[in-house]
Structures are given as structure tokens and as C-alpha cells.
């Protein structure tokens, strides 16, 4: 189960597991973001390719208006998933 908390206007916190069953929930939440968004992933323990696709689609949408998606506090397992899919070259991992 994925929990999404609004930390501030442009920062969200993802907690739990971002699997395919959480795709629609996360996509709906991220659709509200219109400018650069930072996602704190300290509490995110798992992400699958369906989770990655939500982040990539958000990046693509925001990038059209000069904005981006920043990911912070990414744990080692989730970081490996970004590395293996080379998405660490697209997202700013801070």
C-alpha cells in the first residue's frame, strides 16, 4: 500500500510500496502538480515498473513547461531500480 502525504505546496512524501495496484491513485495525485515537484522517498521501500511509469509520465508532462520531478532520500533498493532502468539519468536524485 502506498501512502502519499503533502509536505508543502510542491513537495510530496511517498511511504510504503508503489506497486501496480497503486498506479491510478498516484497518477491522480501527481496530476495536481503543475510546477517542479519534489518527492521525498525516505519511506518508500518498493517501486515496480508501473510505479516508474507514473513518475516518467509526470516528468514528461512537467518538462513540457520547463519543470521537473526531483526525488530525495531514495533508499538503496529503490535507487538500484532507477539505476538498472537508467532513469537515474532522467530524474534528479537529491
Amino acid at each position, binding site marked *: 500500500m502506498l501512502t502519499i502525504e503533502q509536505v508543502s505546496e510542491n513537495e510530496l512524501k511517498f511511504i510504503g510500496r508503489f506497486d501496480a*495496484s497503486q498506479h491510478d491513485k498516484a497518477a491522480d495525485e501527481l496530476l495536481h502538480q503543475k510546477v517542479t515537484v519534489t518527492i521525498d522517498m525516505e519511506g518508500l521501500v518498493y517501486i*515496480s*515498473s508501473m510505479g516508474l*511509469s507514473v513518475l516518467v509520465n509526470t*516528468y514528461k508532462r512537467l518538462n513540457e513547461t520547463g519543470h521537473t520531478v526531483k526525488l530525495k532520500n531514495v533508499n538503496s533498493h529503490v535507487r538500484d*531500480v532507477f539505476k*538498472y*532502468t*537508467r532513469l537515474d539519468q532522467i530524474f534528479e536524485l537529491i
Partner: protein
Amino acid sequence: MISKRRFERNTDELQHIFHFLKLSWEEFQVDGDDQLEMELSVEEIFMNMIRHNHSALAKQIEVTVEKKEREIALSLSDHEEVPFDITKAKEVDFEEYIKKVKSGGLGIHLVKKLMDEVKFEHRLGVSTVTIIKHI
């Protein structure tokens, strides 16, 4: 040691699959990172099966976990008229992928990266994908 269970072909079943795997990890004493990598690989294969196999014969998907001496073998079996061998799936062209910022199509690549072996077998109308993780 073998554990086996059948799951309906819908996304909501993932939570039941993860619960089933969690019980296996406890029984087989599998550590944290290995658990996450195998759960991720099972999800990718399961989702691939329910999204791309539209055979009228396709009903439940059977998941098997087997502990051998120093490895865990996980198998997912599904009725499939036209077999799709994931071991022969086209490699991701990452240069193109990143240039065009595509989305999707990374699941099988992840499975191959995370697992030590990936095998495919099609017999009597049933496709079985077996992934092996050395522990």
C-alpha cells in the same frame, strides 16, 4: 520445500501474492533485499501475463516458490495459446528510451537484471516463467 497457490488475474491480487511470498520468505529464511527483488520480479511477470495474455483459456495464474540448497526458484504458470517467451524479448534501447523519455516496457528488463536466471517453458498449452535467485 515447495509452496504453491493460484491467483485470479487482476491487479488487486498483487496484495495476496505478496502475502503468500511473505509467508514463504519466513519459512525459507530469505533476507530483505532478496525478498524485494523477487517480489518485484514476480509482480512484473504477473502483470505481463494479465496485460498481454488474452487467451480465453487463461484463468488463474499459479505461483510456485521452491527453496533449494542455495537458491529460490519462483515459477508463474498461465494458459497461453500463443507463447510469449520473455527470455527472447527485445532488449530495451536505452539511448532511444532516454532520448524520447518513453514510459513502460521496463518490467522484463528489470527481471533480467535482478534475477540470476530466467527460464521459459511452454508445454501442453501452459507457459511457465521460472526465475531463480541465488541466496
